[in-house]
């Protein structure tokens, strides 16, 4: 049972270093938590407000108290065991959200302090360079799947970043399964063979980036331009698929169906064929043509691999239309 306890001025609730399972809430009076700042060594005094919990972290984490709790004037408080405290916060999510925010701020702060100490001597790269380096690293150690992920993310976040053309070039070789000559590329020498392609890749990923920002109209015209330029067959095929997705998101369902139907005829082995069928099904569903929608979802289920995300989506969609 939670216990109400009273303390006289100048008494101590607990000392730094004590191991103690109690968590307190201050009812009235004044309590100060005294400790030395780990960075400066300066002595700190944090005043506890009435209604505030203290002693939470060390009690929950089962580690020694990190501060001394000094009573500044006669105070009364309630002492909880950890399990009693847990019962209270489980029933009061507002307290818990507040604590989560406080704790996660503290965690950020200490993370930063640790990083500052490590930084002396160690080079910490900016996120943009860091993300690109990871893609490059995975490609070098022939982990194609991981390389593709990191490079795609790079191009999504930094479509015109400082490594964008290099990233598109690496991404192409990762996608084609080859390992590019990284030594040559980092030396920054001859790269003419990939120059034109990189431009296309750049505009392609720019459009992908617009799509992910839900700017579907802008993305659509970006993809259309790639097809008009017609420089590279592979990106053209990719762009065609993306156009269909844009039309779906712009709620132009009839256009979307037409577009994907012609794509399927033109590229019967398109890597995104199954997804295309799914969008046709979704478009029919949006237009209220339930039986056709169900037919396409069944086709997707028949063709997709068991663990593919599209399988889950199609099953869910099929169930959705069958319930109608």
């Amino acid at each position, binding site marked *: 049972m939670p216990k109400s306890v009273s303390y006289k001025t100048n008494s101590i609730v607990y000392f730094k270093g004590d191991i103690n399972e109690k968590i307190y809430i201050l009812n009235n009076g004044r309590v100060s938590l005294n400790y030395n700042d780990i960075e400066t060594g300066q002595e700190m005094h944090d005043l506890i407000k009435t209604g505030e919990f203290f002693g939470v972290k060390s009690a929950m984490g089962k580690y020694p108290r990190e501060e001394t709790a000094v009573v500044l004037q006669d105070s009364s408080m309630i002492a909880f065991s950890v399990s009693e405290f847990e019962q209270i916060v489980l029933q009061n999510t507002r307290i818990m959200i507040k604590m989560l925010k406080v704790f996660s701020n503290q965690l950020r702060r200490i993370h930063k302090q640790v990083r500052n100490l490590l930084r002396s001597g160690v080079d910490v790269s900016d996120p943009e360079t860091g993300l690109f380096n990871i893609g490059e690293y995975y490609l070098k150690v022939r982990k194609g799947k991981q390389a593709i992920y990191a490079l795609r*993310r790079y191009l999504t976040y930094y479509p015109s970043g400082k490594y964008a053309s290099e990233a598109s070039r690496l991404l192409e070789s990762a996608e084609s399964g080859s390992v590019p000559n990284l030594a040559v590329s980092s030396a920054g020498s001859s790269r003419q063979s990939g120059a034109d392609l990189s431009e296309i890749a750049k505009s392609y990923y720019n459009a992908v980036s617009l799509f992910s920002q839900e700017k579907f109209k802008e993305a659509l015209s970006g993809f259309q331009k790639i097809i008009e330029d017609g420089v590279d067959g592979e990106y053209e095929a990719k762009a065609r698929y993306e156009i269909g997705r844009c039309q779906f998101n712009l709620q132009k369902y009839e256009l979307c169906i037409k577009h994907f139907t012609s794509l399927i005829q033109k590229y019967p082995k398109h890597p995104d064929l199954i997804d295309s069928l799914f969008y046709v099904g979704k478009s029919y569903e949006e237009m209220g043509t339930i039986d056709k929608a169900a037919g396409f979802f069944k086709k997707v289920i028949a063709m997709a691999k068991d663990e593919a995300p599209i399988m889950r989506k199609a099953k869910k969609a099929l169930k959705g239309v069958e319930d109608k």
Partner: protein
Amino acid sequence: MALDLSMFNRFAVNFQPGDIIFCEYEPGDNFYLIQSGRVQIVKIIDDLEKIIDILQPGEIFGEMAILEEAPRSASAVALDNVKALEFNRENFEILMKGTPQIALKLLKLFTKRIYDQKRRFLILTLDDPQAKIADVFLMLSEAQPIHDESVNERVFMTTVEDIAHWAGVSPVESKRILNQFASQRRLEIFPDKIVVQNINDFARFVSSKRRSQVSE
């Protein structure tokens, strides 16, 4: 604590072995609760992929995203076929109201992480690299389950690179110091583990260094 999470099925995501769930340096906006399969937390340090942690079903990762979209500090990679629940700041409130136990779990995770980081900070504030490395062993020893107090020997399933990472000392320098400790018979280095002969000897060494630093 057995939780009924079926109401969150719409947040379920699946990954195949080797899939990157999120990548170091990527802006983070989701956090995950593993339902099945294991997830590796890795970081690329000096052109080597280092496994920092292997997480099991029931564990949470990516939790820093709850507060703000800072770059990820490590990558999460699926080790098996992984099913996880994916949450973001928007649906976090739904999660909290539906299953406050998960929030409680997060609260505990934060207390542990704050403590671990503070402990690490203390190692880094030591000036002497030897003391830093000795203090890493003290930290690792504190994290082990309670020992028989009368036995001073400690076995750590760790490597020179790990020790270097925690101490913030270069691997070359760390290796030199560890070899020096080994020649003084204070520890023994094996390919997969390091055995410290007398942990109390290290404790005395570190605390005397810390005291002399304060009085300087």
